[in-house]
């Protein structure tokens, strides 16, 4: 099977979707002729023409707002916000409009859009190129929220997102675009061509939304992670020798609660890991659901490892980013608790 980077897989997903359905329209800032600042749309304009893939003005609310109108017309826009850090001008359109259109019109109008955006830190991106705003979307009824962690999933989930009848926020951890990253910034990064999840089938396939994947089987503790933190958690398990079960959530909303509950009931312990800031982060929802559903099976408090409650700093990148050492410490504490 061909191996692809996550960028190539995402591009392939759009290519496949555009090839299958001429209602799929791709646009955003620098997305057309140039092929995107991360090359995610490279070649799509040349292949499908300017009506299907084009550059947009620098206006996030314009991009998402126009996509909602297109979706109401009957197209399937897959738009890009250049960095998740810049989605806020479109927040009104996403929360007040895209998420609620089906509900408020009783299905008279629907909004099958995908909003792609590079997310996450670990790249010296500073305050406005590193954020993980997923909790701002998981709190919104009517949205679906996806964070893939590898090329195989990224393609299958993005095709599923484009085909989904409801609005999807598709957060792409840019730290994973070219290879998996376990937080060891001092070591060379291995490219996706050396990783089995870099195997991306040609043509059309989907991965169902709302289904988690177990990345590492274990019996001592369940780690709930997504995006870059999946690799950090796996590294922490290997380095501490703790038999952790690492679950890659993949879809945050709707959440695969069954897989989570089955794992925690088996292990009796749970650690939640995310890059986003701690307070009111998505981890709080995960902890709450675990204690509601697994209380009598828990042998230790459910712990969280997250970004600190500060804006994402530049110089202190590795003091902020929850790396394998921090995750490993919390795993040990949870086992000893």
């Amino acid at each position, binding site marked *: 099977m061909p191996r692809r980077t996550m960028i190539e897989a995402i591009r392939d997903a759009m290519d496949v979707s555009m090839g299958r359905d001429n209602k799929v329209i791709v646009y955003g800032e620098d997305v057309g002729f140039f092929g995107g600042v991360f090359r995610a749309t490279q070649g799509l304009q040349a292949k499908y023409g300017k009506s299907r893939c084009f550059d947009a003005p620098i206006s996030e609310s314009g991009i998402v707002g126009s996509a909602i109108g297109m979706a109401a017309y009957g*197209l399937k826009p897959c738009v890009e916000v250049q960095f998740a850090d810049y989605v806020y001008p479109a927040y009104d359109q996403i929360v007040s409009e895209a998420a609620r259109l089906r509900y408020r019109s009783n299905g008279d109008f629907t909004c099958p859009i995908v909003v792609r955006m590079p997310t996450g830190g670990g790249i010296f991106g500073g305050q406005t190129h590193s954020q993980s705003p997923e909790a701002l979307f998981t709190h919104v009824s009517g949205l679906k929220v996806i964070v893939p962690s590898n090329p195989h999933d990224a393609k299958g989930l993005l095709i599923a997102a484009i085909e989904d009848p409801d609005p999807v926020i598709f957060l792409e951890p840019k730290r994973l675009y070219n290879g998996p990253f376990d937080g060891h910034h001092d070591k060379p990064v291995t490219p996706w061509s050396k990783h089995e999840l870099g195997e991306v089938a040609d043509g059309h396939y989907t991965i169902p939304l709302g289904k988690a994947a177990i990345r590492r089987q274990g019996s001592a503790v369940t780690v709930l992670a997504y995006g870059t933190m999946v690799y950090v958690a796996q590294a922490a398990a290997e380095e501490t020798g703790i038999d952790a079960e690492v679950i890659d959530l993949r879809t945050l909303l709707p959440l695969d609660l069954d897989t989570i509950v089955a794992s925690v009931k088996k292990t009796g312990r749970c650690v939640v890991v995310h890059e986003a800031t701690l307070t009111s982060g998505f981890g709080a929802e995960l902890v709450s659901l675990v204690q509601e559903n697994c209380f009598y099976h828990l042998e230790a408090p459910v712990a969280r490892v997250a970004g600190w409650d500060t804006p994402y700093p530049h110089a202190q990148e590795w003091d902020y980013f929850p790396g394998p050492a921090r995750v490993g410490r919390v795993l040990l504490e949870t086992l000893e608790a």
Partner: protein
Amino acid sequence: MADAGMLRFHVPEPEVRPGGTPDFSNVTIPKAGSVPRPEIDVDPRTIRDMAFSIIRVLNRAGEAVGPWAGLLSDQELLEGLRHMMTLRTFDARMQMAQRQGKTSFYMQHLGEEAVSCAFRKALQPGDMNFPTYRQAGLLIADGYPMVSMMNQIYSNEADPLKGRQLPVMYSSKEHGFFSISGNLATQYIQAVGWAMASAISNDSRIAAAWIGDGSTAESDFHAALVFASTYKAPVVLNVVNNQWAISTFQGIARGGSGTFAARGLGFGIPSLRVDGNDYLAVHAVAKWAVERARANLGPTLVEYVTYRVGAHSTSDDPSAYRPKAESDAWPLGDPVIRLKNHLIQKGVWSEDRHTQAEAEILETVIAAQKEAEGHGTLHAGGKPSTRDMFEGVYAEMPPHLRRQRQQAGV
């Protein structure tokens, strides 16, 4: 150069406040028929002055004059009059229903009936409006059942929106009326996106965007103009300038730009101002803009100069911020009376027939109201089920919502 002393902060004020004498002497009203009618493929740069004038057809004597006149038959005008009268009667009844506690909220169109009623007649089936909460004339003039509108207002068991929406937030794809949102201006850029989609699909349908004077200050107004201009989207960008955004006079949103139409000029969009209380002028300008869009000539911005005669909503009391008699002083008069006088002047209508029509319309509206109330009102009779509350969030109900529906006991 002026003396650089202390800076002073500028906050615009309306000419008159409660207790004062209404004064519109600063509002320049061009003579009916005085503004030329350019070809639809006119170079926008040559008609910049149209953004600062007002296109008018009906003169003081009730005659239709000038190059924008003569597009509608007597029959069409009589139908237009009926639509406006129906909307006005509908408003009055629903306003009263709110006062009687049959619903929580209502918003009238008083004084603005011509804008949406006449615009609707310039569209073709399949075109899509992206209205605000004050364009119900689009539905009335398209024959959308009044009973359905009332069912929505009453949030009753027959409410097409299942009780999920605040009253007057209608939705009808079939009638080219996009779902209304409470969030102002969001629909403006969505309309442009819909129009872009129509062009991408090599369709022939066009979109109409709607916004009030106050909401032009929202950033989505700006986004819409950028996108419409950039992609030459087949959209008519309507600005209904009724002088008031709740308590805020239009100068707060307009600033020093002179007119709202002038906002379009910086985007290279042909921009016209029209007498919003002149049914014939509204229709003629709408038709011009719609034809431009359909001929792939791109967007047009139209400012409708009108006056919000009623309160902002049933939750508002305008006497707290503007003179009570201000609407009487409004120089563009009343759209219903002006069209009525025109039709009388033409000899196809009379005071008697008008009085008779008023009674007939009231009867029709009351009959619709009785039928709607048979399906329940907000606090009495049939209402949407609790199950409906959980439906339609997504195409398919996800597990967490199924659990919550169970918890709710339904």
